């Protein structure tokens, strides 16, 4: 999908969808939404970006490998459950603090950090699948580095095999 329209729209759309995914994530505590659906929206944002600009652009934009992000999310969720050991309540009990920023009370909780972990797991794993699928169907990448034909490969294979055979004979 290499159209001018998509390439023009994609950055704005991606930014908007990422913002919306965070809105859905935070809204999820009391209303429909949450980490899972938020992560899906964020993943589809990056998928659109990938369709417009190629897989390499998405990987550069994400800085971290998608699986690393998923791992970090899983780790974060685990730690969120473990915090309750410090407060003498069972595993995964929701703990709240109410700090105020500029006069506004902001409730923060381990429930939220757990959900953020879910968001990252979903984002990481879905993006990793989406990028793998997009990579296979991408004609540009093949154009950049065309696969050598079997005829071209053959002499090199022979060359690579040679030293081993020689070593075997000397043994």
């Amino acid at each position, binding site marked *: 999908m290499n159209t001018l329209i998509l390439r023009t729209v994609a950055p704005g759309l991606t930014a908007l969808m990422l913002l919306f995914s965070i809105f859905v994530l935070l809204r999820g505590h009391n209303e429909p939404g949450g980490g899972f659906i938020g992560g899906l929206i964020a993943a589809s944002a990056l998928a659109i970006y990938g369709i417009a600009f190629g897989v390499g652009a998405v990987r550069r934009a994400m800085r971290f490998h998608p699986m690393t992000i998923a*791992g970090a*999310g899983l780790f974060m969720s685990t730690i969120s459950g473990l915090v309750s050991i410090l407060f003498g309540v069972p595993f995964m009990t929701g703990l709240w603090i109410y700090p105020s920023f500029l006069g506004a009370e902001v409730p923060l909780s381990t429930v939220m950090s757990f959900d953020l972990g879910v968001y990252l797991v979903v984002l990481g794993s879905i993006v990793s699948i989406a990028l793998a699928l997009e990579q296979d169907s991408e004609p540009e990448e093949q154009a950049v580095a065309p696969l050598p034909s079997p005829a071209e490969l053959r002499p090199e294979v022979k060359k690579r095999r040679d030293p081993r055979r020689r070593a075997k004979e000397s043994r």
Partner: protein
Amino acid sequence: MATAQSVPVDLSAALVLSPPPLGDWLVVAPVVLMIGLGALLMMVRKSVRLHGAIAVAGLAALVVVDAALLWRVSTHGPVTMVMGRWLPPFGIAFTADILGSVMALVSAIVGLAAGFFGLRDIDAAGRRYGFFPFLMLLMAGVSGAFLTGDIFNLYVWFEVLLISSFGLLILGSEPEQIEGAMKYALLNLIGTTLFLIAVGYLYAIFGTLNMADLVGRATLMSERAPLTTLTALFILAFAMKAAAFPVNFWLPASYHTPRIVVSALFGGLLTKVGIYSLLRVAIMLLPVEREQLSIAIAVSAVLTMMVGALGALAQSDTRRLVGYVVIAGIGNMMAGIAIGTPAAVSGAVLYAVHSMVTMTALYLVVGEAARLGGSWSLATLGGLYRRSPWFASASFLLMLAAAGLPPMSGLWPKVALLKAAIDIGAWWLAGAILGSAFILTLALARVLLLAYWRPRPQTRIDAPTAVVAPAADWRIILPLGGLTVLTLGFGLFPEPLLQLAQAAAEGLANPQAYIHSVFPGGAAP
């Protein structure tokens, strides 16, 4: 929220208000440890040098935690922790009784052995592919399945271990592996779907998923509800997972394709998760219906034993052969479940423990034999005794264990099951146990004769791998030797394990302590 604090609400009806003792954290610790480490390994996925050290240290910690849990359960009775402070049956409970904690401990030991072996068996490419993260998540799934007290949660842990097992199965992405994984995945997906349907059915009948809450409800409702259908569904689903007779064909078709350490883990752990769930559901939750279906289970058990033993005799690929030995063991455990008396159940538990250790070790033996001999086929293997007498002795002991001969661990569960079968007059079941053990002895003796005692066949001179195979190092000696010593220990000093298995069976037959641990204040609302 801020407004809720001003309104007085009686929280004691919904929440756990007393702080849980620190020892109760042991029941969630195995799962948390494994998931946390799995996540950590995913984050450092590029630095594969770290993987092995982190994973083995984590698995060693898992053994320690599980041992502490077993110690606490055997001194203080079953341990429960509910997630998120909600009272059961609404909060998801993790409950460990003797059965669950014994299985968890043995699975951790097996996992540690596999971790050590993986240090040698899995190259950098396999590590980058994610062997160790998958191993951690698999252990999380297995531990979670053994320790959960909620039947839907059990389904979730099944999924966790299934998904990580898919990853481990196709490690390397060879065409043969993809084929094996397809069979494995399809059959297991059908099995877990059946399990899910059964759980939904169960919830529709009883309105609860907490196992302690379910105990005893079945006897009250046996007139009104189609409980036999439900039990049959559960048994079919778990039998599929355990590879019992009519649904056993996926195991030999897939377990020989992955790396040998993965086969070892699967053969040791995954089928036993199915047996554990069967024990939990059929013996503890639905005992009356299990009694009605006992003939069907017994027939399936006999056929499983026979198929396993005869299959092992017929195979010449050593990995497939061990797969059939696993199946024969499953038949023995099914026989214990079919009989259903506490003595028989303790025999089944004992067999499960023995089988976890021995089958893993046997797969590792086969892998090591292939490394030394350069082949998976009995036709071309040979002369292993001359190559490494120590390895040959360990293999010999493990084969004795798998065949159920003294002085190894395989003897005691078979004796217990035989006695239980004769006690209820099921002579044909006893005969099948003996017959399958006899055929297994022949099959394993065949391996010993062909691969170890026979001089190396000279037909294929062009197998240079055997000549240049480097000597074994501690990464192979430690897990193989450790597991061998463990089975020998069980065989020579069976008393502690026999007592534990009896206590586990007693806990399944009379789960009063289990219920009290989940509902300390009496019955559920």
